[in-house]
């Protein structure tokens, strides 16, 4: 037993030393492209990056997350070659350039056990601002509403606020969440919760049997289909952001990310390819 442990440890140590000391003849030629930003765009950008790497053998695409605002500020500060933002650029960000690689929509979701089938714009505003606090006021059960809001800096939050004409300080949330999956899990676990998440993710999860339902908005069903034909009102572009006209590797990558060859990757992440 003692000898075995010593042996395993020795092997592990030798392995570790070999791993980090092995010679890398081509190391100097490797070009690195760093992308930071929206956690919604990150998995897609990482997949596009992997395919890009297979076509350019001495390129490495490093994708880091942290939210859209981070992507914008990193691109502006030069900390990243390309920023990722799951929204359009704001007025004070027009010093940057954006390139749309996919579309995503935001849907309001409820637990399947909730009898409410639709909410109009005003009702959603009233629920989120705390003027309606019980489901019976909108035709549901006599139960308190659990309002789920997104954390500051999330583009889903900004888009939601913009669409409903709200300020974040107006919202009276009971739960504050980060990512889409977290929103879905919160609503799955609480029949009286209301949240808003990415349409693609919600549609996939509900098709996989998650106990949630997607509410229509302005009588238009929240579906990938309606995102594609651009009829769904609450949608957002997924953007790559650069400071100034992209050049060199960044330019190649952005062009590659907008080619139809990566449509399968976009759809695999439950987003909608940009029609072109």
């Amino acid at each position, binding site marked *: 037993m003692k000898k075995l442990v010593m042996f395993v440890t020795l092997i592990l140590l030798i392995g570790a030393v070999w791993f980090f000391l092995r010679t890398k003849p081509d190391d100097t030629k490797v070009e690195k492209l760093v992308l930071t930003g929206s956690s919604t765009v990150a998995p897609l950008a*990482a997949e596009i990056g992997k395919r890009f790497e297979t076509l350019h053998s001495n390129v490495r695409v490093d994708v880091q*997350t942290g939210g859209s605002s981070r992507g914008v500020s990193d691109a502006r500060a030069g900390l990243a070659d390309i920023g990722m933002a799951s929204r359009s650029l704001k007025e004070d960000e027009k010093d940057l350039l954006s390139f749309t690689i996919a579309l995503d929509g935001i849907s309001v979701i409820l637990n399947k056990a909730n009898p409410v089938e639709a909410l109009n714009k005003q009702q959603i505003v009233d629920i989120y601002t705390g003027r309606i606090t019980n489901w019976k006021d909108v035709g549901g059960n006599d139960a308190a509403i659990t309002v789920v809001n997104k954390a500051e800096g999330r583009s889903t939050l900004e888009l939601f606020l913009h669409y409903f004409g709200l300020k974040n300080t107006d919202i009276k949330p009971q739960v504050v969440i980060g990512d889409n999956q977290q929103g879905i899990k919160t609503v799955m676990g609480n029949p009286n919760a209301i949240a808003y998440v990415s349409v693609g993710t919600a549609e996939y999860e509900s098709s996989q049997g998650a106990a949630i339902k997607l509410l229509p908005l302005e009588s238009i069903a929240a579906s990938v289909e309606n995102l594609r034909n651009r009829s769904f009102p609450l949608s957002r572009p997924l953007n790559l952001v650069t400071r100034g006209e992209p050049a060199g590797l960044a330019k190649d990558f952005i062009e590659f990310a907008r080619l139809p060859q990566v449509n399968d990757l976009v759809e695999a992440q439950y987003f909608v390819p940009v029609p072109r």
Partner: protein
Amino acid sequence: MFKNVLTTVLIWLTALIVSGVFVWLLSDIVIHGLPRLSWAFLAEAPKNAGRSGGIGPIIISTLSILLVAMVTATPLSLATAVLLSEFTENDSVIGRLVRRSLDVLAGVPSIVFGLFGNAFFCIYLGLGFSILSGGLTLACMVLPILIRTAEEGLQATPDDYRLAAAALGMSRSATLVHLLLPSAAPALIAGLMLGVGRAVAETAALIFTSGYVDRMPDSLLDSGRALSVHIYDLSMNVAGGDTNAYSSALMLILLLLIINSIAMSLAKQWLHRDIVLYE
């Protein structure tokens, strides 16, 4: 009589609840995670944002981050613990200052370490998103645990040892190496285990320092995704990543068990060999 029975029942109930929670948690992970776990899963790279494929590069990154953290933190914390328990009086100014700052450091939330690591190691020192940045950040984070447990272990060794060693004319360093450290070994190892546990479970500090890249790292300066970050991303950010998240979580627990048992048997051999303490 009735009071006694009540107390017994309550104590048993508490024990049952505590172990029940553990068994529930573990069996949930095993039931959901085991079917996907295979050699191929452990060796392959993640595909389709981690929904398919394996976790090979992620295990390597995790181990590298852990290695950097422990190699940096262990000597530092051992030296500090020796300073605190052997070379300063308990109520001296420097001792109090060091202890107080360690207690504050121990209470700092890990996200703050992440932001600090990002600002200091990644940006100021120019290490970028890398395994090195992540490992050094974790080293800062586990320092208080390592130091305080090592210090308590050293202080628990009877003063008789020190007096006897001094009477025999042993130098202070010889006493430390041959007598005090070996007899404090169980505490040192326990501290190390706690540190490894905290480090390997860390997500918030690593997402900003070692990063999100799930490729096989070539060097310590490459970004590498840790297992905990991978689990977080799969369960919270990637639709349809739950099965692989479970398998990765199972792997994380197995990894921790393996590291713990290796460290435990190493400690028994190396440290307890020098000293015979049967009283």
